[in-house]
């Protein structure tokens, strides 16, 4: 074991990427998770906490909510499945102490094993007993190796001086956890018919997460953020997903609530561009204010 970890560490540090396919330790990867985790350490008592996948951290603009009078923090991460949401809440919910949670639910995260998101978390957050449990649960060679590599890195403080740039490629990190994509427009492509195939373990974990939040008496609103309409309608069982989530609490599916244009409001087939985000967020605030979900929060 000692030999394995030593070799893993040396190999992970010096081997070219094509020779380490099962180590995915990327500190400061796309999505600005490192900056978000750094910032969350200072955050306390916000009005709204956002959870979810890249649709969350690229879809809920903290500046728009601030302008509307609500403080917020976005704890979304790439392909975040309920397994990672559970860990993040265990670590930070008590400190953030939000008055409302907006939980972005994208059907795809219920259909995947959660490896990508766990690698993001292992690389950019501290590793504790929660991560160890997650690693065992995922039982994936890439996750084991990355976790061991991250532990050795933490042990020797290898990343102590690391600073993640605010602007990377076309992404800018905005205080509050949001990531703004440089304005661009999606060029429409045909989508093949498909079906969501939900994984039981993600649904079970989702229930546990929701129960945990309910026990703390924090209201939750589930939001299905808009994706390109042709992609959305290519899935035959969207109704099944709607039924599944609406049974857990207040649920807003913006694929049915907003009429957005493929090219004008998206930069790829499932992410809104800044124009789309502005429309989406304003409409969300409007609905939540009208139905009283935001009353008494300001």
């Amino acid at each position, binding site marked *: 074991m000692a*030999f*394995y970890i030593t070799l*893993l560490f040396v190999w992970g540090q010096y081997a070219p990427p*094509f*020779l*380490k*396919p099962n180590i995915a330790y990327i500190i400061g990867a796309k999505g600005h998770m490192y900056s978000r985790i750094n910032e969350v350490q200072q955050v306390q008592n916000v009005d709204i906490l956002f959870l979810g996948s890249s649709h969350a951290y690229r879809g809920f603009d903290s500046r728009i909510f601030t302008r509307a009078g609500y403080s917020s923090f976005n704890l979304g991460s790439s392909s975040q499945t309920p397994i990672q949401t559970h860990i993040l809440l265990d670590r930070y919910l008590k400190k953030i102490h939000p008055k409302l949670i907006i939980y972005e639910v994208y059907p795809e995260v219920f259909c995947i094993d959660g490896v990508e998101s766990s690698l993001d978390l292992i690389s950019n957050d501290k590793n504790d007993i929660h991560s160890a449990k997650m690693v065992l649960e995922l039982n994936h*060679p890439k996750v084991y*190796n990355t976790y061991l590599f991250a532990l050795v890195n933490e042990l020797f403080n290898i990343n102590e001086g690391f600073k993640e740039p605010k602007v990377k490629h076309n992404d800018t990190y905005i205080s509050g956890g949001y990531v703004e994509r440089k304005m661009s427009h999606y060029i429409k492509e045909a989508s093949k018919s498909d079906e969501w195939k939900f994984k039981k373990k993600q649904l079970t974990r989702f229930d546990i997460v929701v129960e945990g939040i309910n026990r703390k008496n924090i209201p939750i609103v589930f939001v299905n953020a808009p994706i390109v309409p042709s992609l959305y309608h290519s899935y035959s069982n969207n109704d099944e997903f709607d039924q599944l989530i609406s049974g857990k609490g207040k649920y807003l599916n913006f694929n049915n609530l907003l009429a957005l244009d493929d090219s004008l409001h998206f930069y790829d087939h499932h992410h809104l561009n800044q124009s789309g985000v502005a429309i989406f967020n304003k409409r969300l605030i409007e609905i939540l204010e009208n139905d009283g979900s935001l009353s008494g929060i300001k």
Partner: protein
Amino acid sequence: MLFNSIDFAVFLPLVFILYWFVFKNNTNRQNLFLTLSSYVFYGWWDWRFLSLILFSTIVDYTIGIGLLKSEKQKNRKLLLWISILVNLGFLGFFKYYNFFVDNFIHAFSFFGSDIKANSLHLILPVGISFYTFQTLSYTIDVYRRKLEPTKNFFAFSSFVGFFPQLVAGPIERATHLLPQFYKKRRFNYAFAVDGMRQILWGLFKKVVIADNCAEFANEIFNHSADMNGSTLLLGALFFTFQIYGDFSGYSDIAIGTSRLFGFDLKRNFAFPYFSRDIAEFWRRWHISLSTWFRDYLYIPLGGSKGSMFKKVRNVFIIFLVSGFWHGANWTFVLWGAVNAFYFVPLLLYKKNRNHIDVVAKNRIFPKLKELGQMTLTFSLTTLAWIIFRAENVGHALEYIQGVFSSSVMSMPHFHNSPKANSTILLIVFMMWIEWIGRQDDHALNTLLIKKKRLVRWSFYSFIVFLMGMFMATEESPFIYFQF
């Protein structure tokens, strides 16, 4: 249960401990325990098909006893035919029923007749081709009076269901394996450690070589119409190493695991890609099946005796049947035929036993001539594997046409080529280790055996590290499970 699964990683040590520490003083209890463990191992996949194994075990055990009591040749023959019909009946029904029905309908529709017959939704029971042949070998050998029929049911049920080789061989002969179940077993440390080494190498070949090659082979074969010649050639090479890593890896794990329990299984692979002609290749590839067909089909047909016509006919029969054994698809039959075509010239010119010994024995490097012979044999084998892997005969022919097109001179192009580079390096590593160990039973048999423990263990740890670093992230079943 897959050898490369967490379930098996828990199952094996548990069975090992109970076998050696709880049941060590009683061979019958050890056999009973092995039978039950084997049924758990098999039932993990689908417990319903345990009834087939149990039925086959009871039938052949009873027939064995019947053969013991019966002296009349007529009765003995009848008992043998009952065993053959029961065993091949199950195999034929589960494996070939749909194939024959579909081809029957197709043939009649060709002549304008509209036949109504339904294919059944049959699940092929894992390992049926292997344990059927194993039990048949028992009945045939008892019938031929080469083996005393057993009265010990637990020994016999362990022999039929022995979990290390139950689902994908090696196909054991009753004359070799069954007597081992009668003997009192003593734990042999050196034997078990060698088994561990063989398991390690087998796992490396499976999870690193076969599963990584599978990713590229599948991508290229599944989209072959869109690929250029060089990519198709690369796809064929990836499949060539996939099937070797997969099947020889499985055999190594099976043989190594058996050694942990004190059993010696037959060798199934003897570094076939270092063969200098096709005859040598077939003496080194899936040895337990080749020798089964040799002893129970080829020799009864007359083997290489008789007229030239008979010799050639026998070669074709054995290769076609062997191809068809692999699956209910014309591709396997064609693959068998192609190998027969490769083999026949060697037989006609009496060169089929030219290369009995290992290549470059006691030398580090092969001679240039040997290298040329190995390259030619490897190329012919790769060409045949295209037919084996293709979805149907049309696909195989199109694929081969693509390989021989002018675009074979252009650069290969497919998804995730950096990972393909690391996979190629790993294949080179595997072949290098196998070349060093080619004179032994398996690649790690004596490798570094005279070096200090630290050196040996560092090397084994390095292989474990390579597995951790490069193992394919999708757990995939062994190819031969489907046969």
